[in-house]
C-alpha cells in the first residue's frame, strides 16, 4: 500500500536496500523442481527481474503430473495472479490450472485432492477436493491463455481465458491454500508470474486497493483513546500549555512537574541554557544541581557550545570552560552523559578558527541541541518519577509495576508509530523473501529456507 508518509517511505527504502544483497530472482515467483516436468527460464521483455518459464512434460507414461510454484499468491494484498499459455498438448490430454496448499501432490491434477482448486482443459469443469468437478466454463486447448487469480481481501478465486474473466469459481479460499499449480500430461506451456498479462489486471488491482483502504478506515480508534495518546505525547515532551489547553477534553490530570520541565526543555530547544537552569532551580530548589552534578555538567557543555554558536570569542569560551567545565568528579565521569560526549570533543571546538567546518561541527547543530533537550527531558522525568515513588513508599501505598519500571524513552504514540514502521518493514522483507534479519548476518551462503529446492519428488 502506498502511503505518502516520510517514515514509511524510509522503511520501504531500507527493506529494498537489504534485498539488493540477494539475487534479483528472489523477488518473483518460480517453480519447484519436479522429477518429470522440465522447467526452463525465459526472458521477460518488460521486466528483467521476473523470469517467465517454459514447462514441459515429455513423458508418455506419466499423466497427471503437476508442478507447483515456490511462493504463494497470498503475498499480494490486492490481487495475486498468474497466467499459462498452452504451447502443445497430446490428443485427448489434460492441462489444468489452479491453486493448492504448499506441498501439493506432484502427480495429481489440482482440484482432485483436499485444499486444492483447479480448472481442467478437457471438460471446462472446476474441481475442489473432488474427482468429478462442477460445471464452470468453456474448455481450453493449445494456443489459449488461461489465468488464475486470488483476491486477498475476500478469498475469491477466479479464472480467466484469453483476457476474459470467467467468473468467481470459489469464495473464501484460505490464504494458506493458494500456491500456483499447473497440471499437465504430455504437453508444454509458457507461464508468467509477473506482468504483462493478457488479462487486464490493473483495474481489479485499483478496485482492491480502494476497498482495502476502506477496510482500514473501518477499524475503530476511539476519540478518547486518541486524545489520551496525544495528551501523553504532549506531557512526555514537555508541551505544558498545549497539554493544558486540551486537558478538559482529554480528562487527563496535569502531571506534577510538567510546567517546570516544559519550561526548561523549551528553553533548551531555543538554546537558552541559563533560562533552563533557572526554571529547574525555581521548581526543584537552588541546591538541585549540587545533588545532580552530571546534569549540571551536561548543561554546562551545551552552554559552552551556545557561546561559540553566538559567535563569542575564544577567550569567552575558554573562561567559561575553566570555571564551569573543570568539574570532573567520579560522579560526573561515571555518568552516561560523560561517556557519550567526551570533554575533548567540546574543547576541541576551540582548536578550529572555523568551527562550523570542522569534524566536530555536528555539536553546533540544532539537531544536537534538540538531542540534549531530549536527554534532559528524560532525566527530569526520571527524577520526578523517583520522587513520587519515594513519597508513596513513605505513605505505604502498594507499589505498582509501572512505578518500578524505568521511564520510557518515548511516548506511547511514538512507540505505536515505530511499531507501524517495523511491522511494515518486516512485511516488505517477507515479500522479498529475506529470511535473515540482521544486516550483519546476511551472508551470501544464506539461501532461502525453502528446503524443497533440493528435493526431487
Amino acid at each position, binding site marked *: 500500500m502506498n502511503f505518502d508518509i516520510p517514515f514509511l517511505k524510509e522503511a520501504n527504502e531500507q527493506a529494498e536496500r537489504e534485498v539488493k544483497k540477494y539475487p534479483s530472482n528472489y523477488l518473483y515467483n518460480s517453480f519447484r523442481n519436479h522429477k518429470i516436468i522440465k522447467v526452463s527460464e525465459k526472458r521477460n521483455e518488460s521486466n528483467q527481474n521476473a523470469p517467465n518459464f517454459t514447462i514441459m512434460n515429455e513423458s508418455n507414461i506419466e499423466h497427471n503430473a503437476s508442478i507447483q510454484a515456490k511462493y504463494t499468491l497470498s503475498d499480494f494484498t490486492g490481487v495475486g495472479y498468474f497466467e499459462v499459455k498452452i504451447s502443445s498438448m497430446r490428443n485427448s490430454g489434460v492441462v489444468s490450472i489452479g491453486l493448492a496448499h504448499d506441498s501439493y501432490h506432484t502427480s495429481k491434477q489440482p482440484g482432485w485432492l483436499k485444499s486444492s482448486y483447479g480448472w481442467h482443459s478437457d471438460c471446462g469443469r472446476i474441481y475442489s477436493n473432488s474427482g468429478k468437478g462442477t460445471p464452470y466454463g468453456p474448455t481450453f486447448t493449445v494456443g489459449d491463455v488461461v489465468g488464475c487469480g486470488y483476491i486477498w481481501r475476500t478469498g475469491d478465486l477466479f479464472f480467466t481465458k484469453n483476457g476474459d474473466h470467467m467468473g468467481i469459481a470459489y469464495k473464501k479460499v484460505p490464504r494458506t491454500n493458494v500456491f500456483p499449480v499447473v497440471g499437465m500430461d504430455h504437453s508444454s506451456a509458457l507461464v508468467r508470474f509477473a506482468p504483462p498479462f493478457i488479462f487486464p489486471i490493473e483495474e481489479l488491482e485499483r478496485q482492491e486497493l480502494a476497498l482495502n483502504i476502506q*477496510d482500514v478506515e473501518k*477499524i475503530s480508534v476511539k476519540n478518547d483513546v486518541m486524545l489520551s495518546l496525544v495528551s501523553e505525547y504532549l506531557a512526555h515532551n514537555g508541551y505544558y500549555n498545549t497539554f493544558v489547553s*486540551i486537558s478538559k477534553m482529554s480528562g487527563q490530570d496535569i502531571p506534577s512537574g510538567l510546567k517546570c520541565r516544559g519550561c526548561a526543555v*523549551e528553553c533548551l530547544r531555543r538554546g537558552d541554557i541559563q533560562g533552563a537552569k533557572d526554571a529547574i532551580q525555581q521548581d526543584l530548589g537552588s541546591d538541585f544541581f549540587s545533588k545532580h552534578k552530571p546534569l549540571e555538567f551536561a548543561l554546562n557543555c551545551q552552554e559552552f557550545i551556545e557561546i561559540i554558536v553566538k559567535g563569542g570569542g575564544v577567550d569567552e569560551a575558554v573562561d567559561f570552560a575553566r570555571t564551569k567545565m573543570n568539574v570532573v568528579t567520579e560522579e560526573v565521569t561515571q555518568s552516561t552523559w560523560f561517556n557519550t560526549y567526551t570533554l575533548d570533543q567540546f574543547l576541541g571546538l576551540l582548536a578550529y578558527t572555523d568551527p562550523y567546518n570542522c569534524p566536530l561541527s555536528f555539536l553546533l547543530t540544532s539537531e544536537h541541541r534538540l538531542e540534549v533537550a531530549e536527554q534532559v527531558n528524560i532525566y527530569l522525568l526520571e527524577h520526578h518519577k523517583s520522587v513520587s515513588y519515594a513519597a508513596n513508599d513513605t505513605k505505604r501505598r502498594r507499589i505498582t509495576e509501572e512505578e518500578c519500571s524505568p521511564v520510557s524513552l518515548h511516548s506511547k*504514540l511514538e512507540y*505505536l508509530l515505530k511499531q507501524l514502521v517495523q511491522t511494515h518493514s*518486516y512485511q516488505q522483507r517477507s515479500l522479498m523473501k529475506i529470511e535473515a534479519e540482521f544486516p550483519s548476518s546476511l551472508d551470501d551462503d544464506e539461501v532461502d529456507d525453502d528446503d524443497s529446492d533440493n528435493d526431487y519428488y
Partner: protein
Amino acid sequence: MSNPKRTVSKEEWEKKLKQVKINKSDINKLIMNYFVVEGYKDAAEMFQKESNTPTLINLESITDRVNVRNSVQSGEIEKSIEQVNDLNPEILDNNSKLYFRLQQQQLIEMIRAGKLDEALQFATEELAPRGEENKEFLDEIEKTMSLLAFADMSDSPVSQLLESSQRQKTASELNAAILESQCQETAPKLPTLLKMLMWAQKRLDEKLIYPRINDLQTAELVVPNQEKK
C-alpha cells in the same frame, strides 16, 4: 511439509525497534494536523508557539467549526443546528443521516435533563416520521427511548448514549461534514496511522509470530501465546 511460521523473539524485535528513527518534527506535524482538523483551535495556537510547528491553514477559519463543536459538546444541539445552517444550509440538507444524528442527540439531552414530556413530544412529532422512512433510524429511536424504562438510567444497556463520548461522536461527525463542504480533508491523519498499525499487524500475523501491540492505549508489546504478566 509446510514451513512453520517463523518466530521473532521479544529481544530481537525490541532491538530492531530501537533503531527505528521517527523525526519528532514529523510527529509534531501529525499532531498539528489532528488539532486543526478536529477543530481544537486553542491547542493548535499553543502548539504552534511551543513546538514551532507551522500550520498550513489560517487558524481563524477554524473558529466557526469550533463554535459548532462547542455547542454540541455542551449539549446545546438546537444552537449547533442554527450555527451550521448559518455557515452553509446545504450541509444538513444534503445529509439526512447527520441531521437525524443531531435530532437523536437533542432527544438524549432532553432525557438527560429529565424533561420527559418534552422528550416524548419531540420523539412523536419530529423523530417518529423519520423512523418511518428508515429502519435504521427507527432502531436508534427505540434504543434512545429505552433509556426511559430505567429509574436509574445508568443501569440501561444503552447507558453509553448519555456519556460525553456520545456527544463527542456527534460533534466529530458534524465537524467532518463541515470540513467536507469546505473541500478540506475530513479526517486527521493520526487515527488513520493507528488503524493502519492494526491492519498491518493482522496482515503480518499470517507470516510471522512476533510481539504485537493489541491495546493502543497501553502500547504494550505482547508476544502471542505467552502469558501476560
